[in-house]
């Protein structure tokens, strides 16, 4: 009995000593949340460089990839709760720093570095009310025209001479569409987005709207009526719905636009710069070329609804280290290495003429898109809600629920209510 008690005492003392004896210096961690699940190599780069950063500063980087579906809820719960929140997270500045107050302002020297090294159209990305919070991470986040070269040839079209105007484009789409005996398309010219959340529907429709000279909101982002339902917007939506309902060069029966293009059921898709990596991986037999979007009254230009940035959480106890890490990777080499590893376009202006970028199939189209006037931006804190209201009207029209004018009038009124609220 006494022996047993002694053994227990010895075990407890040993455990206590083990717990109190200082071990080797522990590396601390910066937790980085991203929802770019489609870009694993890009995300891994933070961890790789984090190891080198740890040697100097004692902080490693742990990347947590949050699934895109419903990421907002997870971010929100963590950022409100504070405990368990990331030190750095990926998001849109106008949401997380504008609608909410979760972001730490970027140190002035780092902000200056970024302002001086971004392409002109991206300078506003990552800013809220003139102050820089976020580091833009995605260049080429605007749609370009991917064409299936074989399908073009088969339809008697020259894949090296893409349509430049919307009229030429529509004529090409008609040639590329094959209808069955019942008049339903078995192959379409254009892979149109008709499924999913209305925000995505809006995103895919906006290049058409911009090509018609329309804009979703007033320049000061305070009014929708007169813009979201302008005659130009009505004409753009009429053209868009005619693609489905009148000309049948796009189909609501087909799956997602990416799948339709990858399965050679659609000859043309409008997608961002990351898409060619997707095609090469998922549909390697598709021979494709990338061109600038066709122009209408004006050219759609390089614009987007989703300006992704990296942000530092203002309540993070490690925010100084987080900014140091950001500074550590804010240079042209890291920018190129990280984006090249994933096969996406780098962000720094100096890298846009690198050998890597020049070798990409979207090099010329990107340059051409960047030469076009910068289209309207909608970086409003309520952009999700506004784009939903607008997208609901767009999708209702393409599903034949009504005419563009009354549906856009309704959407504009709803958007104004959202803006005023």
């Amino acid at each position: 009995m006494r022996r047993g008690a002694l053994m227990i005492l010895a075990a407890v003392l040993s455990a206590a000593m083990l717990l109190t004896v200082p071990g080797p210096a522990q590396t601390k961690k910066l937790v980085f949340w991203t929802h770019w699940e489609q870009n694993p190599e890009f995300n891994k780069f933070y961890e790789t460089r984090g190891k080198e950063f740890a040697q100097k500063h004692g902080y490693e980087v742990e990347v947590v990839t949050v699934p895109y579906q419903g990421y907002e809820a997870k971010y929100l719960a963590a950022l409100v709760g504070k405990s368990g929140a990331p030190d750095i997270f990926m998001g849109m500045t106008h949401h997380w720093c504008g609608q909410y107050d979760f972001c730490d302002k970027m140190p002035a020297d780092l902000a200056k570095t970024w302002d001086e090294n971004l392409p002109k159209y991206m300078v506003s990305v990552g800013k809220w009310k003139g102050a820089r919070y976020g580091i833009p991470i995605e260049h080429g986040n605007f749609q370009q025209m991917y064409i299936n070269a074989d399908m073009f040839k088969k339809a008697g079209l020259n894949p090296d001479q893409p349509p430049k105007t919307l009229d030429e484009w529509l004529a090409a789409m008609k040639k590329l569409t094959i209808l069955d005996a019942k008049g339903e398309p078995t192959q379409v010219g254009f892979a149109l987005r008709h499924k999913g959340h209305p925000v995505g529907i809006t995103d895919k429709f906006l290049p058409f709207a911009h090509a018609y000279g329309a804009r979703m909101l007033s320049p000061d982002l305070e009014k929708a009526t007169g813009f979201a339902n302008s005659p130009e917007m009505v004409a753009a939506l009429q053209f868009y719905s005619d693609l489905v309902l009148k000309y049948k060069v796009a189909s609501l029966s087909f799956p997602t636009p990416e799948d339709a293009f990858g399965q050679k059921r659609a000859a043309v898709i409008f997608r961002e710069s990351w898409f060619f990596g997707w095609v090469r991986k998922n549909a390697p037999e598709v021979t494709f070329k990338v061109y600038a979007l066709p122009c209408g009254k004006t050219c759609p230009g390089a614009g987007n609804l989703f300006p992704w940035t990296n942000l530092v959480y203002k309540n993070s106890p490690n925010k100084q280290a987080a900014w140091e890490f950001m500074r550590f990777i804010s240079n042209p080499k890291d920018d190129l290495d990280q984006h090249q590893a994933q096969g996406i376009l780098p962000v720094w202006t100096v890298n846009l003429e690198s050998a890597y970028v020049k070798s990409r199939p979207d090099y010329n189209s990107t340059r051409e898109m960047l030469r076009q006037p910068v289209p309207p931006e909608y970086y409003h804190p309520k952009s999700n809600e506004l784009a939903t209201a607008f997208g609901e009207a767009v999708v209702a029209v393409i599903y034949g629920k009504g005419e563009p004018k009354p549906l856009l009038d309704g959407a504009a009124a709803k958007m104004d209510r959202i803006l005023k609220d």
Partner: protein
Amino acid sequence: MDRQRRAGLLFVLPALVYFCLVFLVPLIQSIVWSFYRSVPGGTSTFVGLRLYHKVLSDPTFWQAVGNTVTLVLLSVPATVALALAAALGLHRFRSLRWRSACTAMYFLPFSVSLVAAALIWQWIYDPVYGFLNHLIGFAGLPPRKWLQSLELVLPSLALVNVWVRLGFDTIIFLAALQAIPGEYYEAAGIDGASRSQMLRHVTLPLLNPQIVMVSILELIFNFKVFDTVYATTQGGPASASQTVIMLLYDTAFKYFRLGDASVMALFVFLSLLLVTLLQWRLFRRQVEY
């Protein structure tokens, strides 16, 4: 407090703590938030009943309510009726082995995660490659757009819900059928009752508690359905399948309007409570074997 009462309290304490943390606290929080325009990470402003007026006068909200009610009306009676039919069929099996095998088959979809079930059905419903269009093609029927059709999206989703829930309800009915003493049927037989009369005058009245319970459970499940809709249509096409819970989710976590979402949550809670109490009151019969 005597020892027995203390022991009783300790036994229910874990469930009570769980209930308070997971249901009661969020419910109270929702009630409070429904009176505030709150900005997470920022300040909240008391706005009285303004959010109630805003939500309850929004046509989008009522469209979502309409979609939800339609889904409930399509799913609940079908699930309960089919489950009852399946249970009656299974109850007639003489071989215990076959009965168990068939019961397990019915139950399998219930054990599948709702998102996985939704993805399976998305493939079945695919207008181009889908199994269902392939199947109806044999009957000479034209292909349908199912989940991409304004008219068919809700019936299509209702079918998924029926498929998922059928096994669970069948098991409950089967267990209840097995508990009905055989003497009742023997007595009815001696009195000259036909099978349909036995069903109407013996089986169904004795299954009343289970029918009411299953109907309530199905009502709650279908009213709160989210996973299948989110994974397949995200409320589309053109909001034709947007349910209240989908709208609530978007309002809270896409538009970050926690006050508005709280009003919707309370609406769902009170509606379900009211309908459940009504169902209980109107259809519940005391049954004694």
